[in-house]
């Protein structure tokens, strides 16, 4: 089954580049997305393995399902996006081919059982997504792509240094398979393990978009087409984070969780701080969503750092953030289509001009800042509760304070954009219902998880959290 996921896109890419037709592009992407979703649901019931290097386990199945659902939603949105896009057929085919490569490399990151292989796939995600970011071929998208490639490549080089340090510490037990690393964690030289973790955390963290190394993220998210922003934020950040989580588990197995947890909490708060500083006076709504991604990755880092019930909260937050943020970015694409501007001050009266987009925009806002009944409320509540239970009152206060600032920043922009009486003069027609469908589906999923979590979903999240606690 895994081989179908990994190799069928090669044939699809061949077809896409050969036919260069919009219909072929659309059919193949949606078909692959449906197959991907079905296969990943099957994996929940029946673990799969392909060679020693690709395997599902309790942790990565959660990430795989998130990726499959978000990808399906994005491809459905993509149908109308490509239909009304005026780039040449060659560019569109290249876009589709790169989209396939991008999703396959993310599947590779998620399923790989070997640290070095995971690193290779993280590099592949960088390479394959750069054309997607550059898709509009404008000067600003070129700038965003260059920054993305350059900053992420330095991050990837740093992660490589971390992997070398880890290998140095391994001594004679020279295997970088995660299972062997967990097993041999106690014999890894603590000196090298301690140097390697910050390098790997900052290296992969560059792709996650943590605090001070986030510079590429707002640019890339705001300049890429909306379906790609949704994929970058909803799935790529998760995939890169998986690398950190796996290495963090090595630290826990080596009885050095105090060290990795402290670092995770520090970088998490740095991310929250950066996000709060920029978001309070933001002018571009796509950049606002990008900073919100930084914030949410910071929240997850903090909840991994506090441990205990925080692990469950982190896993829930991954799922909730991905769906909410994907819906948010896709909706921002609809706004951009209608108003032709990313400037918050240019957008007024969203509810009046396009009712569905307006309501989706408000609902996404409620979802991302953690208002009930959305699941981010549950995860953030659980995180704060764990902090109090651990006696980390100061951390909890700072956490709530920063979240409130960010909520105020996003709320100010969203409410200003949504309400008002201005009517758009030349209001373009909506594409079709397909540009609303994925967001509505994501919202339904989120509300269902938030109000009464199905046992099936609960089990997946709980198993992932249990996998992390040793």
């Amino acid at each position, binding site marked *: 089954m895994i081989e179908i996921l990994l190799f069928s896109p090669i044939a699809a890419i061949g077809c896409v580049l050969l036919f260069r037709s919009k219909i072929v592009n659309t059919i193949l992407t949606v078909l692959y997305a449906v197959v991907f979703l079905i296969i990943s649901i099957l994996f929940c019931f029946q673990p799969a393995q392909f060679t020693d290097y690709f395997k599902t386990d309790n942790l990565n199945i959660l990430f795989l399902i998130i990726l499959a659902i978000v990808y399906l939603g994005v491809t459905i949105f993509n149908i109308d996006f490509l239909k009304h896009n005026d780039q040449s057929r060659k560019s569109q085919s290249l876009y589709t081919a790169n989209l396939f490569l991008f999703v396959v490399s993310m599947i590779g990151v998620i399923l790989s059982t070997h640290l*070095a292989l995971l*690193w*290779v796939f993280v*590099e592949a995600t960088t*390479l394959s997504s*750069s054309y997607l970011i550059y898709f509009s071929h404008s*000067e*600003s998208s*070129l*700038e*965003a792509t*260059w*920054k993305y*490639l*350059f900053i992420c*490549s*330095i991050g*990837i*080089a740093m992660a*490589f*240094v971390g*992997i*070398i340090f880890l*290998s*140095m*510490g*391994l*001594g*004679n037990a*020279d295997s*970088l398979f995660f299972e062997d690393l967990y097993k041999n964690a106690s014999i890894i*030289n603590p*000196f*090298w393990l301690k140097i390697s973790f910050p390098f790997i955390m900052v290296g992969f963290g560059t792709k996650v978009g943590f605090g001070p190394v986030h510079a590429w993220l*707002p*640019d890339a998210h*705001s*300049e890429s087409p909306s379906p790609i922003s949704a994929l970058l934020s909803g799935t790529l950040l998760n995939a890169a984070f998986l690398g950190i989580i796996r290495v963090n588990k090595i630290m826990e197995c080596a009885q050095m969780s105090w060290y990795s947890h402290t670092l995770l909490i520090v970088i998490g708060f740095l991310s929250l701080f950066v996000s709060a500083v*920029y978001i309070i*006076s*933001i*002018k*571009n709504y796509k*950049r606002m969503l990008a900073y919100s991604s930084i914030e949410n990755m910071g929240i997850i880092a903090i909840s991994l750092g506090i441990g205990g019930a925080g692990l469950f909260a982190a896993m829930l937050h991954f799922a909730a953030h991905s769906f909410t943020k994907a819906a948010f970015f896709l909706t921002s694409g609809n706004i951009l289509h209608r108003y032709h501007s990313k400037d918050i001050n240019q957008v007024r009266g969203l509810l009046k001009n396009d009712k569905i987009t307006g309501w989706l925009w408000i609902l996404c806002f409620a979802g991302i800042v953690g208002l009930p009944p959305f699941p981010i409320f549950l995860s953030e509540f659980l995180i704060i509760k764990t902090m109090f239970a651990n006696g980390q009152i100061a951390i909890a206060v700072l956490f709530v304070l920063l979240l409130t600032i960010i909520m105020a920043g996003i709320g100010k922009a969203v409410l200003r954009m949504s309400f008002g009486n201005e009517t758009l003069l030349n209001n373009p027609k909506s594409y079709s219902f397909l540009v609303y469908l994925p967001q509505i589906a994501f919202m339904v999923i989120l509300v269902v998880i938030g109000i009464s979590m199905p046992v099936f979903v609960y089990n997946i999240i709980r198993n992932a959290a249990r996998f992390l606690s040793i």
Partner: protein
Amino acid sequence: MINFIIIVFGLTMLYISSTIRIEGYIKALSIQGFLLFFLVLLDYDTIILPNLIFLSFETLAVKAIALPLFLIYIIRKNGIFREVEPSVTSMSSLIITSLIFAAGFYISYWSIDAVSNIRPFYFGISISTIVAGIFIIISRKKIITHVMGYMMLENGNFLMALSIVKEMPFIVALGVLLDIFIAIYLLGLFVNKVQDEYSEIHIDTLSKLKD
């Protein structure tokens, strides 16, 4: 012999930090490629044959010859001004790089107690090269010098990976994957000229996107 080569490798970094001519950078990068090639050859008894052939090809043909030639070609073609335009003076740049190397040596001797199977020189020089490469990226203004800084960083990575070539031969080969990025940057700069997207390749042109 190995130690001598590694010291010369470190000296090239000091040279880079003090020179203001772009040709100096290219020459130093080429020398680094040759030095890495010799290091690979000197380790012939610990590296398996296919890996040895691959690594010698990579260091000699790619790092020492092809990339520097391509850099010279790009500079001529794009008409890039010959000076690197540092944002700090070359004297302070040299001092900072020397401090980075001093710190690198300090760390390597400090770590010698912790681990026995690592050659400290490798570790000290390579970590300093990585940090110095980042410093070059930060302190120079031209995009092409950014790419060269990244190449130095990557050479440092390669040197560090060489120190564990015996235990994990594939790690060194993996590091070569980072060269793909370099190829993309150089091709990007090359194509950039053709498309005439920017009038001059300078990081100041990359300031449209900000908050």
